[in-house]
């Protein structure tokens, strides 16, 4: 139960941060990416703030033997930069620029019931399943 409550409250705080920062507004996000037009660099400060905090706290937290509520840290261990990472990131970036939503803000913004936001969220879920299907059928075989 405490695990669920901690996941819930972390995500609640995270979502509030996204909203305060302006990440839930596609026009703002597209303005940040619009370097050849009317560039609005302010969203760079979202990453600066988040990384400033997390790069320090990450080091302090992982000095512990274990998290408070579970027995192990689950951190990615892969270090190799492969074609999946790069191609996936190209596709993600293209979609981010096209719609102005990335996954977290899309979920938070769905509450607005804006039809575009809902269309985005629905197809993002479909895209996630599509990858699952293709991965199982084709990609997994090559390891």
């Amino acid at each position, binding site marked *: 139960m405490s695990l669920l409550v901690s996941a819930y409250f972390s995500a609640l705080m995270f979502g509030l941060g996204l909203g305060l920062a302006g990440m839930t507004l596609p026009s703002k996000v597209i303005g940040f990416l619009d370097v050849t037009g009317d560039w609005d660099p302010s969203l760079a400060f979202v990453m600066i703030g988040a990384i400033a905090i*997390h790069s320090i706290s990450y080091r302090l937290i992982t000095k512990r033997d274990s998290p408070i509520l579970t027995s192990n840290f689950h951190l990615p261990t892969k270090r190799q930069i492969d074609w999946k990472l790069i191609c996936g990131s190209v596709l993600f970036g293209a979609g981010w620029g*096209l719609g102005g939503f990335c996954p977290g803000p899309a979920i938070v913004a769905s509450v607005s019931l804006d039809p575009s936001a809902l269309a985005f969220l629905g*197809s993002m879920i479909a895209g996630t399943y599509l990858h699952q299907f293709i991965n199982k059928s084709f990609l997994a075989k090559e390891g």
Partner: protein
Amino acid sequence: MNIDAFTMPLAGGILIGLSASLLLLLKGRVFGVSGILAGALVPKAGDTAWRVAALVGLVSAGFLLLLVRPQSLAIVTDGSYGRYIGAGLLVGFGTQLGSGCTSGHGVCGISRLSPRSIAATFTFVGAGMLMVALMRAMGVL
């Protein structure tokens, strides 16, 4: 440039950094939204409930924002479904193939100085800028 325009993004960013730290401290998990979502959509025994709780947390944040700061959700779009459906498919598929999004790679991964996350973040920000530049060139924006 107006300094106030930077304080809210910075404050939001700090809150994001703190909440990612909270999840790591309590549960030992990376706060990556695309990964949390995928794990909830394709459930594995014993690893689903916390993901659903986190998704409910994000939705609750949306409701709270509607109450206290509705301008955060005052979404203005051009109303074309095709554009957002295409964008959603690219983001859903791309984040799975690339093992992460703005939160997992951009915030958590860069904070760990993960070479994969640094490469991914430069790639998706670059691809996003290119896409917006293309949309500008084609007169969509």
